[in-house]
């Protein structure tokens, strides 16, 4: 299970990084989303992988799943969702304004700026 989980995180991260390096807004945003999925899974795993353990600390149970990573993941999901929404809106604004969806700066024409 650990191997499968770790590979899942790894593949998501690799795919996310590849897409982020594409430098057009749509792939970059998809890539960033994949990265946030990867990190959410990673946070889950930071409380150790258990199956069927009760989720909260209670009397008389020795084996329980760590509740904290779940709270962390919940926060992380909310935040990354909000951030992704913001970047979609800003990127859309930039695309509609400049009619160009490249993330990097356009080539400047040097001659104009020289003093």
């Amino acid at each position, binding site marked *: 299970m650990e191997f499968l989980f770790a590979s899942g995180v790894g593949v998501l991260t690799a795919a996310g990084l590849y897409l*982020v390096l594409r430098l057009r*807004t749509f792939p*970059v*945003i998809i890539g*960033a989303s994949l*990265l*946030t999925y*990867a*990190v*959410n899974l*990673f*946070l889950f*795993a*930071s*409380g*150790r992988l258990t*199956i*069927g*353990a*009760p*989720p*909260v600390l*209670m*009397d*008389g*149970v020795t*084996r329980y799943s760590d509740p*904290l*990573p779940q709270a*962390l993941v919940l*926060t*992380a999901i909310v*935040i*990354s969702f*909000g*951030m*992704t929404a*913001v*970047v979609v809106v*800003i*990127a859309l*604004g*930039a695309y509609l*304004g*400049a009619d160009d969806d490249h*993330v*990097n*700066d356009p080539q400047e024409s040097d001659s104009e*700026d*020289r*003093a």
Partner: protein
Amino acid sequence: MTHWIVAPVVLPAMLAAFILLVVRFHLNLSRVFSVAGVMALLVIGAALAWQASDGTVSMYQLGNWAAPFGIVLVADRLSTMMVLLTAVLALLVLLYAIGSGWDRRGQHFHALYQFQLMGIMGAFLTGDLFNLFVFFEVLLIASYGLMIHAGGNDRLRAGTQYVLYNLLGSTLFLFALGAIYAETGTLNMADLANRVEMIAPENSTGIRVAAVLLLLVFAIKAAIAPLHFWLPSSYAEAPAPVAALFGIMTKVGAYAIIRIYTMVFPPDLETTGGLYGMWLLPLALAGLVIGMIGVLGAKRLDRLVAFSVIGSMGMLTTAVALFTPAGISAALYYVIHSTLATAALFLIVDLVRTGRGQAGLALRAAQPIAGGPMIAALFFVAAIAMTGLPPLSGFVGKLLILDAAFGTPLVWVTWAAILGSSLIAVVGFSRAGSVMFWKSHQQRDTFSDDTLSGDQLGVAEPQGPKARIPVLELVSVGGLITLLVLHTVLAGPVTRYMDATTQQLFSPGQYIRAVMDVPGKDLSTDAYHADDAKEDSGPIGDRLGEPVTEEEN
């Protein structure tokens, strides 16, 4: 337990919501509430700093839950100093934003401004790593809104880059937090300090990876050498008051490095030893040199100032990377100087932009601007401070850093980089200033009408597009410059205070005891909760216990 520690976080949050919901259509009311809120913050910040100045570490448990389970806010010398600095900067920058009308050019400036302050204050006060992440996100999401305030294609493009870069930074932060939690089982800084110490060096792979990841995250925020690429476009394209306020955001990264790496991963810790001397110092020096070369190479005044921010962050990180008490103390002195100088320069650049109208900020001679001598004088004072020439505080700060670097093995490289880059910065700033301010006058005198190009036609009307005297703006910039001068004049007492702060940072026992030894709410004596526990334990235990047994069967 005093509740005032949480006030710098709660007050802007409430005020932002109030401004957004109640007075958003009334610009003047928004301004009044915003200024009043920042002034209240200033008073609270001063009171907290005064309380912490005798060395007490006060702590606030949110919801009265004990650390490490609850979230704590901690006010010690360092965090209250940063809170006070933020409040001072926020007030002056807000006055500029109101005076120059920047807050009128888009929606919700004041609400976003307050949210931004909430995030910054929270990041300085929190004693919990995950909470630090949350406050980073609060300040970032507000900064996204402020960054693209007033719109425009270039600004939106720079905004996209800025948001994406920080989105990746946040992801990295979460990876670091996950790794730290997996290794230690806690995210409270004081608790972490105790537990990281207990990790044996042979089992330290995970925590070392986490320490480096965390350093990378803070390096992104602090724009340290290979991770600085987001800064020039963002700061140059952001509205001037926002860029001036962003001056404190790079310091949030520096603050986090100082805080985490003196307390949780101190330099004498065996597991992470060598991280700073080997990696951070060369990168900091590289950042210093790159920033100052950027100053020389920049073709626009706003980018020039943005590169000088990278240079000054490099200088700051150099002092931090020494990780000696003298180095940290010098770094703290430099933090205040660099924040004020950065803000002053960005505001002055905006005055120049307003004055030059069509000619913009490209480094070439154009018509002389209205109030030129005054603005030129302010620019040169701020530039002197930024490049670290005597007599202003940049010089004192640089001297302290040079002095702190004296005993270290890399002293020659460090000195060469600091002094060489200062020279480059001086050349860059004087070239920019001469072209922008002096050459313009020469051209007016020597050019005859038929040689004028389209850009210089405005010379015919030397009054320029700006007729009114920018009182509030000059008050704001003048205030920043006055603070810089005060920072120089009072260098003795300030340095002593920084030494005391550093001492507190290097003996984190007091901080750890203040956080860990205070009990939180006691549920066993709480009638309501005690009943709850009795009633709930049975049924929930049964319900949740079942799947486990089924699995095992």
